């Protein structure tokens, strides 16, 4: 075909030849197709970017406020007799509440903020946890009794919400806890500098609080839970995953059995995480009698989930090491194992580390299997005592904590859920940056 079509053209030069300065219709068509494809690509990227920006915007606009918390500054005189009386009473905190109320009333008078409210009603502007805060301080600092101590008591979540613009006066009409009159007081106290918003360290380092005290809730304890889980996952899945991959890739004979194993590992990577959760429940808790809600068990479950990811990425990076390197080592009398450990593994390291960190990041964000083994959010109310407790004492993890907060009715918790997501994303970002740095560090060219 080419022969016949070319023959006349070459025999009569000029007759069929075209100027290079004008496009023939075929070229025009091809160019148009290419231009169209570029537009599709740009549109696709644009859509992706739009969603990314929308996502980031909603996360930040909803969650950033969680990092600020309203507090009321009060100087409380710690009088020995009052404290003794409080410690003797049955409901100890109620006396401490009275102490705080007296100080608040006095402070308002001094500041010239007039009100007709009774002190009990007035105290609604403070967190229900304020008396507890005072008592804990007194018990842990007995030497301060007899002096006056300055406290930044948390404002109640309604007050906090009002200052953050979440709670409106209209909405308060149906609220039993706070009235518009409270807000008038708040406005004046803000002006006097008694009520202030400050950075919310407690949100990052604190523990979860009960349903009625969202202002006290922090993600710190579940962060510790996540940390211990990640330790378990790393310590188990990296060596097991790498050893399995090296064996499969470098040593195992290629036969039906290894094919079967390979297919199953790939399948395992696609199993929904909740399946691993129920497996962990039956195997680790019901059969092996490991404690419920323990980060150790969570770590074991997430290890099962992470292993296939690590094995697949490790095998891929082992495969990408050129065979000539193996030949070179074997050719001068290195054993198989020496060739793998001295030459192949170091070259595959960047890929292995990247895969591991991606696996860990996946595990860090996993929620469903944790709920099945009892690592639900509200458990994260107490810091573990020491490392042993860290692995075995009931705890939650960041995503489960976030889920728990998102479930609760109070919109103040909803804000904290978004805030928790920001923290989780920061962790994931750090992990990804570490992965990139490690990859750069270990990467060698050949």
């Amino acid at each position, binding site marked *: 075909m080419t022969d016949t079509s070319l023959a006349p053209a070459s025999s009569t030069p000029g007759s069929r030849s075209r100027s290079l300065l004008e496009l023939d219709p075929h070229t025009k068509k091809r160019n148009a197709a290419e231009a169209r494809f570029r537009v599709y690509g740009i549109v696709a990227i644009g859509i992706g970017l739009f969603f990314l920006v929308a996502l980031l915007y909603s996360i930040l606009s909803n969650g950033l406020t969680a990092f600020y918390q309203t507090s009321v500054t009060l100087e409380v005189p710690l009088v020995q007799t009052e404290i003794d009386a409080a410690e003797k009473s049955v409901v100890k905190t109620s006396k401490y509440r009275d102490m705080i109320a007296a100080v608040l009333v006095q402070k308002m008078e001094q500041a010239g903020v007039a009100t007709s409210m009774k002190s009990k009603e007035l105290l609604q502007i403070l967190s229900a946890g304020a008396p507890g805060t005072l008592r804990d301080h007194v018990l842990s600092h007995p030497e301060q009794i007899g002096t006056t101590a300055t406290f930044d008591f948390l404002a109640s979540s309604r007050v906090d919400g009002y200052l953050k613009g979440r709670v409106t006066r209209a909405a308060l009409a149906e609220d039993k806890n706070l009235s518009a009159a409270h807000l008038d007081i708040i406005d004046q106290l803000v002006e006097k500098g008694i009520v202030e918003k400050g950075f919310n360290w407690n949100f990052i380092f604190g523990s979860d609080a009960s349903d009625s005290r969202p202002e006290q809730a922090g993600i710190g304890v579940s962060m510790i839970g996540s940390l211990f889980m990640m330790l378990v996952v790393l310590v188990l899945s990296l060596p097991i995953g790498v050893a399995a991959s090296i064996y499969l890739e470098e040593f195992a004979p290629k036969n039906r059995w290894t094919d079967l194993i390979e297919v199953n590992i790939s399948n395992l990577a696609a199993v929904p995480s909740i399946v691993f959760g129920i497996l962990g429940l039956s195997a680790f808790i019901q059969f092996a009698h490991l404690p419920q809600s323990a980060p150790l068990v969570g770590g074991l479950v997430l290890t099962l989930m992470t292993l296939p990811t690590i094995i697949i990425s490790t095998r891929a990076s082992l495969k990408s090491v050129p065979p000539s390197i193996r030949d070179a080592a074997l050719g001068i009398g290195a054993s198989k194992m020496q060739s793998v450990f*001295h030459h192949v593994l170091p070259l595959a390291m960047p890929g292995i580390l990247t895969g591991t960190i991606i696996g860990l990041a996946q595990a860090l964000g996993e929620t469903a299997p944790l709920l099945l083994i009892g690592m639900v959010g509200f458990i994260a109310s107490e810091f573990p005592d020491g490392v042993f407790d860290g692995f075995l004492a009931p705890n939650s993890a960041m995503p489960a904590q976030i889920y728990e907060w998102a479930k609760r009715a109070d919109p103040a918790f909803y804000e904290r859920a978004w805030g928790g997501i920001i923290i989780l994303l920061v962790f994931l970002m750090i992990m990804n940056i570490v992965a990139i740095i490690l990859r750069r560090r270990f990467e060698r060219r050949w």
Partner: protein
Amino acid sequence: MSSFSGLARATDPIDQNKATAMENVKIAAEKVQVFYGETHAIKDVSIDIRARTVTAFIGPSGCGKSTFLRCLNRMNDTIDICRVEGRIAIDNEDIYDPKVDPVQLRAKVGMVFQKPNPFPKSIYDNIAYGPRIHGLVRRKSELDDIVASSLQKAGLWEEVKDRLDSPGTGLSGGQQQRLCIARAIAVSPEVILMDEPCSALDPIATAKVEELIDELRENYTIVIVTHSMQQAARVSQRTAFFHLGNLVEVGDTQDIFTNPVDKRTQDYITGRFG
């Protein structure tokens, strides 16, 4: 095997001066068969390879030169589907004896590959790796000596002595190949196998490597696979011609090129196929 004597003769290689070959045989292969799964890649090859001599394997591509070469240091063991039959002896010891550890064998029979494959490490570490894993040295100074002498023997010393710490992969292709030869020499092998060592090099680098091969002949038994007949003529004393898995003819290089006995050798040398 076959009752046809004509067929048997066709697979028997013609060795033009077998009598003189008997004295210093380094490698003796007898009736070697190699299979890749069902593919019969080497058919009944018997050959004696002389010590301190350069033997060239020539033949059209796919005829099994590399396959046979890789039998000599059992590199074929690394290919799952590969099966070797027959007997190959080095210094009268069967290298396929179950007692033989291929790792030990490969220290004695070094190999240089088609594509230069230095480790992505420093020049020094490239050379030092072999002596280290074989425990040939006890002190750093001994290792330094081995590195220097190996590089000298490979004719690379003058070019790299000031940058032993720079990566071996940063050298030019020809230098890399000589580095690989130095690396092979460093473990004091007795035999060096080279599989088309110059096919990735330019003519000048090729000339250097060929010169080097000629010098190495003094101390080592060298087997070189080449697809270039000119190269075989330049560097080798003995030449073996392979065709479709058969060893067709083996003899002194001069005789093979000037006076081939077999028709196929003749055709190949005159460029009728290949």
